[in-house]
């Protein structure tokens, strides 16, 4: 009789374990998938920048310093992006990436502010299109980041609360890092380009 009670308890525990484990895996897939969106959009952003620099160069030859700063920030961010591709959710690299993207955002902001001084550049259709593409890509990164952070938070809430934290600990689930962009104000505020 007693043996059956023990067997029953073990069976119930096993079922609970499996259910929680599967839930954790689903949530982890969710945030990993959301992260791949951030990655796609950052790549897109990085790919647009050389075009932008080429276009600006034709009109604003004297701004070499700024252009070089943009290229440098872009290359740095691209390097970290590639590094992170192998370690999704790693909090430390994630923070680095956030910093690099914030840096890129602020030098880009400087570049757009500077374009105010060149009416021919501002009127250039190619420049306008690139500006729209970069605006959109930056928003896409931000929205993808928002979707990722929501997914990561849901995962963390499950992985850190009782009883699922026991399963997470036994099965070796690690908490997911949030993507926080440093210097966020600069990204939002700096490129105040108006069509008014």
């Amino acid at each position, binding site marked *: 009789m007693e043996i059956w009670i023990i067997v029953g308890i073990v069976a119930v525990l096993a079922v609970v374990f499996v259910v929680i484990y599967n839930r954790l895996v689903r949530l982890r897939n969710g945030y990993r998938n959301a992260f791949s969106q951030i990655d796609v959009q950052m790549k897109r952003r990085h790919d647009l920048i050389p075009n932008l620099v080429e276009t600006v160069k034709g009109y604003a030859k004297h701004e070499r310093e700024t252009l070089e700063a943009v290229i440098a920030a872009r290359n740095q961010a691209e390097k970290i992006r590639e590094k992170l591709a192998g370690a999704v959710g790693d909090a430390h690299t994630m923070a680095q990436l956030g910093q690099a993207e914030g840096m890129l955002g602020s030098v880009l902001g400087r570049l757009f502010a500077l374009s105010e001084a060149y009416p021919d550049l501002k009127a250039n259709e190619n420049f306008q299109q690139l500006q729209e593409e970069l605006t959109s890509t930056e928003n896409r990164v931000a929205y993808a980041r928002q979707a990722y952070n929501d997914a990561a938070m849901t995962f963390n809430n499950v992985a850190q609360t009782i009883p699922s934290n026991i399963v997470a600990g036994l099965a070796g689930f690690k908490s997911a890092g949030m993507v926080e962009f440093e210097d966020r104000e600069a990204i939002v505020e700096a490129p105040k380009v*108006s069509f008014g």
Partner: protein
Amino acid sequence: MERVFDFRAQQSASRRGTALLVLLFAALTAVVGGAIGGAVAIAFTYRRDEIRIDEYEPSTAIVLGLLACGVIIAIAWMRFASFGGEGTRVARTLGGEEIHETTTDLDEKRYFNIVEEMAIASAMPRPAAFVMRGEDGINAFAAGSDPERAAVAVTRGALTRLSREELTGVVAHEFSHIANRDSRLNMRLMGMVFGLMALWVAGRTMLQAFRFTGRRSGGRSRGNGGKAIAIVMIVAVTLAVFGFLGMMAGRLLQSAVSRRREYLADATAVQLTRDPVGLSAALKRIGSESHGSRVVNAHAVEARHMYFANASGSISSFGGVLATHPPLIRRITALDPQFDPATDPIWLGMAPRHEDKADAGAEPPQETEPTAGPPRETTASAGPWG
């Protein structure tokens, strides 16, 4: 200024409201079906010019009542199935033209990009993007029964007259309708209203036929023929009366559900953009013009519940109970509790408007920008953080 907008509370309140209204709809169907069943069962007790209530059989009433409910639901379902769930078809019917990534028009490209952005924010597949080129008002709609077959459309007026943040708010609102499956809910409710209307039409047709036969036979028949006519007449009157009352009540409920879903879509839009300012500014801009959201397409009346804002440009004469959208001021206040129609620069039409870039060069420089509230006209980096 503190932002007090709580989209999660708004969402759960809207969902609760909708659930209650859907329950009322089910109750309405049951009442109409039950009333018809009861009346017909009473009609069956008719013998020699009198109705004998004491011979009335409740089981007959229940069976007939269930039958009536079944007929309403069957008609509703057939009607619902006939709509189909293809959003692109609806968008074309309402005068939309699909735009693609390759568009060279800067305004359309911006709109296309915003649709892409919202697809990422909502983790849904990107719906087909349509523009209603013949429409100068500011309006938009979403169609399609599920995210895989959805389409969003905006008017040309919305493209040229809204800033990037404002247009993002409008597109996010339409995405919310898709995410909340509002289009499907609305089609189902329309089907139910149609089912109730079918009872009314059937009863009315029977009454007209009866008047015709009654006149021919002189109205003085006795025996079995008279009994049959009396039963048919009672059935016809019951169908006409309860069908009509049911249809009117159904319309009221459908409009109430539609208004609830508008609040829910506004709240979900803020969840997607995390920026209540853009959406409320778009609503204020609609309010600042007398026909701000009017749509001229001939099919707009049928589809009025689908639009972003009131498409007819006129206020409902029944004190708003049949209106598909809540009053603009209420929607704005839900997003921006500090909103004051007497001083708000956008609402009063004093805030600079986003002009079509083609004429931007010809425009004189804008007067000093009012400091209170108008969205920044940043085009280079408008983050969703607000």
